[in-house]
């Protein structure tokens, strides 16, 4: 019953050049009642037994089933390159599940994912099947990973890509805005909670949309992390009530509490 354990890699599938899906076997004992991950929670993963890279890296829970945990990740730098080299049977070190989770929506909701942000939102779409309007933006068609899977769990799907190779050309927040405008002209007091995970510019834009529309908005934030458990104070974000730890009080925050810098 500990949140620190070693796990065995079951699969580490390349989805395309940039994305991979990692499946690990956490073992029976580690996934007991206290340790079942909720949507929005994350794990710290270390794939390497040497000191470079040194720190574990945070990844959102993408799926879990019995003893297995799945993570969807984008290859970025040292840490994710090492992760991408893992093969079946390799052992990795894991801390988690960590952080808070998305408050469960009471009815329909909007999920807005920028790029790999989909990893954090998919479990939410999954437990609230067919009640979420999914807005999913990415650089281009091939970076819209897990689109059909996420789409199948959603009530409706809206897609935008920077290069227009799939869906609307442009940023996903534009699509959300026109969606909201259309609805508002139909339903006078239209309000749905928004759940968001993606790059900072998207979140900043959202904070304005949420403010203007008076809609609740929960965002999952990313910060550089060392410990993941609240000890180092490395991962803080500025909020209206001072610095808060993304790994402990977050990663999910009410967007109106965030002070954007």
């Amino acid at each position, binding site marked *: 019953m*500990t*949140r*620190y354990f070693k796990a065995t890699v079951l699969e580490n599938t390349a989805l395309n050049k940039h994305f991979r899906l990692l499946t690990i076997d956490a073992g029976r004992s580690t996934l007991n009642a206290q340790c079942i991950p909720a949507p929005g929670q994350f794990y710290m993963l*270390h794939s390497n037994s040497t*000191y*470079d*890279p*040194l*720190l*574990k890296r945070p990844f959102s829970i993408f799926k879990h089933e019995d003893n297995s945990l799945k993570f969807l990740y984008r290859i970025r730098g*040292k840490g994710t390159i090492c992760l991408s080299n893992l093969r079946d049977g390799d052992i990795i*070190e894991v*801390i988690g599940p960590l952080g808070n989770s998305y408050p469960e929506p009471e009815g329909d909701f909007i999920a807005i994912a920028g790029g790999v942000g989909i990893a954090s939102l998919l479990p939410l779409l999954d437990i609230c099947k067919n009640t979420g309007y999914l807005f999913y933006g990415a650089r281009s068609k091939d970076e819209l990973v897990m689109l059909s899977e996420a789409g199948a769990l959603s009530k409706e799907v809206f897609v935008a890509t920077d290069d227009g190779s799939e869906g609307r050309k442009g940023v996903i927040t534009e699509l959300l805005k026109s969606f909201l405008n259309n609805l508002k002209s139909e339903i006078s007091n239209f309000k749905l909670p928004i759940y968001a995970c993606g790059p900072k510019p998207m979140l900043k834009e959202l904070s304005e949309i949420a403010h203007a529309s008076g809609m609740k908005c929960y965002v999952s934030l990313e*910060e*550089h*992390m*060392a*410990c*993941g*458990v*609240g*000890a*180092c*104070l*490395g*991962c*803080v*974000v*500025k909020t209206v009530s*001072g*610095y808060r730890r993304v790994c*402990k009080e977050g990663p999910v925050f009410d967007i109106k509490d965030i002070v954007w*810098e």
Partner: protein
Amino acid sequence: MGITPNSELQTPNLSVDIAGLRLKNPVMTASGTFGYGEEYSEFMDLNRLGAIIAKGLSATPRQGNPTPRIVETPAGMLNAIGLQNIGVKVFIKEKLPFLRKFDIPVIANFFGDSIDEYVQAAVELSGADGVHALEMNISCPNKHAGWIVFGTDPKIMEQVVTAVRKETKLPLIVKLSPNVTDIGIMARVAENCGADAVSLINTITGMVVDVKRRRPVLANNTGGLSGPAVRPIAVRMVWEVFKAVKIPIIGMGGITTAGDALEFLIAGARAVAVGTANFINPTATIDIIDGIERFLADEGILDINEIIGSLRT
């Protein structure tokens, strides 16, 4: 029957005395890397630790630096937390009750940006039930001396350590900065000012540049380097200090395994603290305690004190 007492006899003694504290074993947590103990309590029995050194405190709360506050470097990391902390009063009220539940010494780490602030924090902590010793972080800039870091100028350091020493009867540990030409001299200043022990090393100042943005990665520009990368420097400094002073030494800097801890003990540290390694392995301290015990048993050493300062050069 004959075997039990025998093998009990051969369980090596791990306990050490530092500055009037008796520790079960020489392994502590380094300040700022273990919060106030709570965060890691789910991963281990805190009672197994030699001592807890808590996150640095100031007389009044600090909000710390903007982010990014940390960046990884080869086998190390820079941090510029900016000494964010809840302040001495909140610590005493909200964190000490939890720590008092354990049967291990709690060492409060503190700092200030003026001598008055240091003294104020020390006085308040000295009056608190459950603080067993003080560790003074002197790697802070002095606002009354052109922001020169207390711990890099022997004269300024002398003033602040003397001032604090006068106001507390608790064991006083002075935590030395490695950003100096001769750390032996600084240790001697601490000793002469009445410190009961010195601890070292604090982090080494470093910088990482984001070449695309032509900016330092850390919002604070520079940060403190810690982790395995600094270990050879830290071991060398412990050895230099061991030759320079008589008071006990708490060694730290990159300790990740029992073997690392033993390097410090052999070089002259009477205890060690584990910092960055906690982030990588939440049970690092326990693994190190177990590993030290195994090492002593394997080597047939009955008392850890036999290897402290045993380096043959």
